[in-house]
């Protein structure tokens, strides 16, 4: 234990090491969606090719019947919203969990072509390398 403590102190004195080592805490990253600085081109891309995307009232019927959601954390309702808000991190990591089985399209009370939305989203992520799936 002594050695480790000494190393910690040494770091503090020499001003290296991460904030965590120097201060014992870091500045918490906010969870706020900053709508104005987000990039919503992927949402616009999807909306242009699939107009029914605008009809979603976020009722969650699709996520309820989802085959993948039965096994893992995957909510199409949440992804639709996050895409519209330009929060793409979570979506790009999880979108390939979808099996395209089509149950969501079948149950959607607003007739949103969810299968096409997912496919277009995947294409869009492929195109923008920062979120390559």
């Amino acid at each position, binding site marked *: 234990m002594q050695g480790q403590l000494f190393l910690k102190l040494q770091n503090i004195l020499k001003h290296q090491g991460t904030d965590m080592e120097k201060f014992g805490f870091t500045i918490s990253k906010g969870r*706020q*969606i900053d*709508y*104005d600085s987000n990039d919503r081109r992927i949402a616009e891309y999807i909306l242009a090719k699939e107009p029914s995307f*605008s*009809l979603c009232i976020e009722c969650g019927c699709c996520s309820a019947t989802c085959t993948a959601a039965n096994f893992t954390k995957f909510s199409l309702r949440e992804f639709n*919203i*996050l895409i519209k808000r330009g*929060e793409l991190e979570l979506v790009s990591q999880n979108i390939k969990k979808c099996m395209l089985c089509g149950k969501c399209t079948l149950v959607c009370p607003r007739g949103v072509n969810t299968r096409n939305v997912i496919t277009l989203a995947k294409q869009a992520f492929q195109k923008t390398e920062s979120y390559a799936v």
Partner: protein
Amino acid sequence: MSKHVVVIGGGVAGLETAGRLSKEGISVSLLEKEENTGGHLSDWYKLFPDRRDSGEVKKYLDDLSKSENVLLMTGSTVAEFRKNNNHFHIITSKGKEIKADAVVVATGFDLFSSSRKEEYGYGIYDNVITSADLERMFRNGKITMANGAVPKRIGMVHCVGSRDEKVGNLYCSKLCCVTAVKQAIEIREHIKDSKVFCFYMDMRMGGAHYEELYREAQEKWGVSFIRGKVSEASESINHFIVVKVEDTLAGRPLRMEVDLLVLMAGMEMSKGGKSIAELGGLKTGENRFFEVADHHFGSNISNVAGVFYAGACTAPMNITETISHARAAVSEVTEYLKASGN
């Protein structure tokens, strides 16, 4: 002996009641505190759900109530209100004394004064307006920000002064949601590439064709609906309004700058109604609207025999319901007059 009825309030309900009563051969004195009748109707631009011009309904009501049986007294309120052996003595603020066999209270509603919701900064930040202000802008055909520029991104805050314990109004005003959707569509029609955001807790689109209007707003006009009650609005350095809300369906707080923020003010018991309640000893409910005798088959009857209610003074109502409620009041009055036989 022809009967005489006093109708207090010259809005939609008052005009409809006066007109229908005169058709039954009953003479009416119609008291209206403003200089002209129509109540809020003359503030509206187009009406939901079919977005017809409000002038058409105004014209219908004016034609209906223009008859020699109806004595219109504008600019006068009720100073005194006494009832003795089922006659009513009413003295108006202009000193005129009226004797009547029955009274119909049609004092309607007042819009919630949005400045009471301090955290939204109405009256403080330049670009925070209410839905009534927006209707006026539509009527004059110009939607502009305080500095005259055309707004591109508009936010609409639902439930301002309704369903809100902090301002003492627990009830839902029922019509702000559909008004917001209607106005969102009108904004999109007036301003070409504008973008409208509605911040709602629940979309209460219960009336006929309301849901279709909601769908049209999404499908045709690309209006975005974000579920979350706006916590506060403040002004950024370039006079945009910063809206802070939690996007509850994304489960994360959200910050957004809008050019114009429209507060959908709810409906409250009117100031005139409150004074009539005191003068006439009329009971008001927990939400301060008049307490009706029975919610199913007595929604026009008050706790004082001979005094009847018509329209939104009993509860938030749209124009269709107000007119039907007024017609029901007329049938209650005629039945009462026949029964009392004096």
